[in-house]
Structure formats: C-alpha cells, structure tokens
C-alpha cells in the first residue's frame, strides 16, 4: 500500500488490523488505538482520502490502496494548516486522540471549507476526547478553515 505517499510493504497475517500494521509493522506510531471497537476515533486515518477507523480494517483489505496518517498530513518542514490551527487554539492536551481528529478534520475541511458550528460539531461527532471538552477543538477547526482560505493551500495530500 502507499502510505503518506510512499509505497510500503510488509508481511502480516490476514487478521492484522490496519492500525497495528501501521504502528508496528511500518513503525508509524502516530496513529493511536483507544478501543478497537470503532467508537473512540483515535485510530482514524485517511483511506483513499476518506477518514476511516483503522482498527476496523484488516491490513490485507487496505493492500493496494492509499493511506494517509498523521505523519503525512504536513510537509517535511512545516505543519499543515489543520495541525497549525490545533496548536494555535490549544486544541490538544494529552494528544492521544489528536491524530484521529486531525485526519477527520483534514477531510472535513477539504469537503466543506467553510463549515458552520453545527457542521463542525457533526463532523467531529465520532471522535472522543477526554481532555479538552471539545471547546478548543471546535475553535481549531474554524481557525484551520481561516488558515486554509488565507493560504489557498491544497489540503489534500
């Protein structure tokens, strides 16, 4: 599969979850595992550009597709606008849920560059955060929308 733009390959049994494959077989530990039953969203990555729960996919199913993880959202020297916005707005505390949010929000803003408050909340409604109470995450999404509009940056990587 192509991960963050780079063709990657590794051997794994069919039951290896994509989340584990990314983390342990490919060493990309930025994607986190919070529940392994699809509820918390920590494991969210972009699969052919769409956010999916990597704990609810087998690596073999993902073979031949494109996966983007948090490590691939920004460039080598700088963070993506979404990432920058999370820092600007104190949108994270322990950081464990953050990669899942970043992937979800990246796709959200690509599809809807100027979401209303309701659309933001609906868009992130499947990601749990135990630290922030979501207040600053919502602010970060709006700020990311501003940053993207300012740069005219292409968000989809």
């Amino acid at each position, binding site marked *: 599969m192509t991960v963050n733009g780079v063709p990657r390959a590794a051997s794994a049994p*069919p*039951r290896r979850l994509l989340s584990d494959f990314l983390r342990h077989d490919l060493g990309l530990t930025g994607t986190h595992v919070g529940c392994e039953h699809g509820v918390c969203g920590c494991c969210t990555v972009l699969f052919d550009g769409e956010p999916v729960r990597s704990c609810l*996919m087998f690596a073999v*199913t993902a073979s031949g597709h494109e996966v983007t993880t948090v490590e691939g959202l920004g460039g080598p020297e700088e963070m993506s606008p979404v990432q920058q916005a999370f820092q600007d707005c104190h949108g994270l505390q322990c950081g464990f849920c953050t990669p899942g949010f970043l992937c979800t929000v990246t796709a959200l803003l690509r599809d809807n560059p100027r979401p209303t408050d309701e659309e933001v909340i609906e868009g992130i409604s*499947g990601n749990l955060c135990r630290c922030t109470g979501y207040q600053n995450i919502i602010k970060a999404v709006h700020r990311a929308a501003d940053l993207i509009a300012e740069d005219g940056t292409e968000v989809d990587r």
Partner: protein
Amino acid sequence: MKPPAFDHHAPETLEEALDVLARTGEDAKVLAGGQSLIPLLNMRLASPGHLVDINRLTSLDTLEVTREGVRVGALARHARVERSDEAADAQPLLRAALRQVAHPVVRNRGTVVGSLAHADPAAELPAVLALLDGTVEAASAGGRRVIPAAEFFAGPLESSLRPGELAAGAFFPALPERAGTAFAEVTRRHGDYAVVGAAAVVTLDDDQRVSSARVAYLSVAATPLVLDLTGVLDHRPPVTCDWAAAAAYARDHIDTDEDIHASAEYRRHLAGVLTERTLRAAAQGAL
C-alpha cells in the same frame, strides 16, 4: 482485543466469492464494510474460520436510481448513498435514515447491504427496508433469489441468508405520488443506536385524505416491527387526524424489553411519541 485467526479470501470476481462461500458454508462470514463484523471479531465474540473479503468486487459498488426505486449493490458505502441527491429524491427515507447511522467516518466504510445483512433490530436501514417492503437479492453458486423484507429479518442479528449465500444487492421502492416520509430516533448520544426509532410513510388520496399510514420501528422487537396505522387514522385529512390515537395504538401494539439504557415502559412511551411525530411530519410532506 485482537481478532482470532481466520483464512482470508479476497476474490476478484463475484463467481469466485460465491465459490468460496459454497465451500466454506457456515464457517464463513462475508466482509464488506466491517464496521459491525470487525468489532465482533476484535472482541472475540465471533470466530469464523473463513472471511470472504468482497472489497475487491468493485462491480458490486453500484447505485442505480429508477422510477421504481433505488437499487444498491453490496459494496455501495453508506456515505455514497447518503450523498446521492438522486437517491434522496426517489426515496427520501434513505438519506434521512443514513444520517443517523453511526458517525460520518463509519459511514465511509459501512455498506447499506451489509447493514441489512447484519440484521440488527436497532439499526436504521432494516426498518426502512421493512417499511417500504423492499427486497434483498441473495446470490449463491446455485443461483439467485429475491427475498422480501418481511422474510429477510429472522431474528436479532439473524437474516434468512443461507450458508453459501451473499447479499448481492438491495432494492428500496421509490416514494409514490402524494406520499410523504419522516424518520426520527431518540438516542443517548448522537450517533448511538436508537433507544427507539421510527420511520413513517403516509400516502394521501385524491381528496387529500390519508389512504395509507405505516410506521416501522427500530429497537423495539427482535426484528423491525411494522405497524399499519391507516385504520386508526380513519381516512381523515391530516389536519383532523387523531395523531394521539395513533400513538396510543402503537403503545398498545409494542411489547418491548428493557436494557441498561431504557426501561420497557419508556421505550413504549417513546414509540408513541415518535409515532405521532413521524406520522405528522410524513403527512405534512405528502401535502
């Protein structure tokens, strides 16, 4: 919570898939979206010896809208069907129900047909299929058959698919003229399974009187429950319909269980409330 081992099959054609299913029978499960199946595997609540992964069968990723209705192939994701304005115009209940299915991210992978085959009485799409008298097309190495909704849902998490069969598609009839729909559910958190949910279709005749009123319920029985409330509404125009009587009828005809989130009595009460709300809205939509 890691899944137990299984033999993984990734057929490239439907024939191949059906062939594997014929050989593995009861010991196989079909993997499409995986949003319901993989949690079960991760929790080791299921350990099929074989998994038939149909994600390469792109020929099944179809969405066809005609005057008759909406035909969905096995690999059509919830998100695709939800986004389709054509499908929503032909049958508004699809989009209304899909909006309530889990969360947007889960809808990117989960499939409409997969949700039907999973046959969870708390899920949205089985109730919609039952309400609309839709069908599921089952394919096997031995041929095809079309199963009406009323026969498809056998029990909680149990469809009437036989070993060796794969749900290849589903058909949701279009909304007729002078008909309106509504969907409502009460959940604990946004995106959770419904405590109780209801989908309604109301049809009016040439005099703008209710000629048909049916409601299907989520989370009240072992399979989707469909009630015909036409009689209760007594062929009246919507403005004089006795919605409260419909609610009472629903409460009287629903016998449900309690669980950790809600008592049986509260569920029955909600069924009444949602009956009224959805019928009223559906009738309004029919005008």
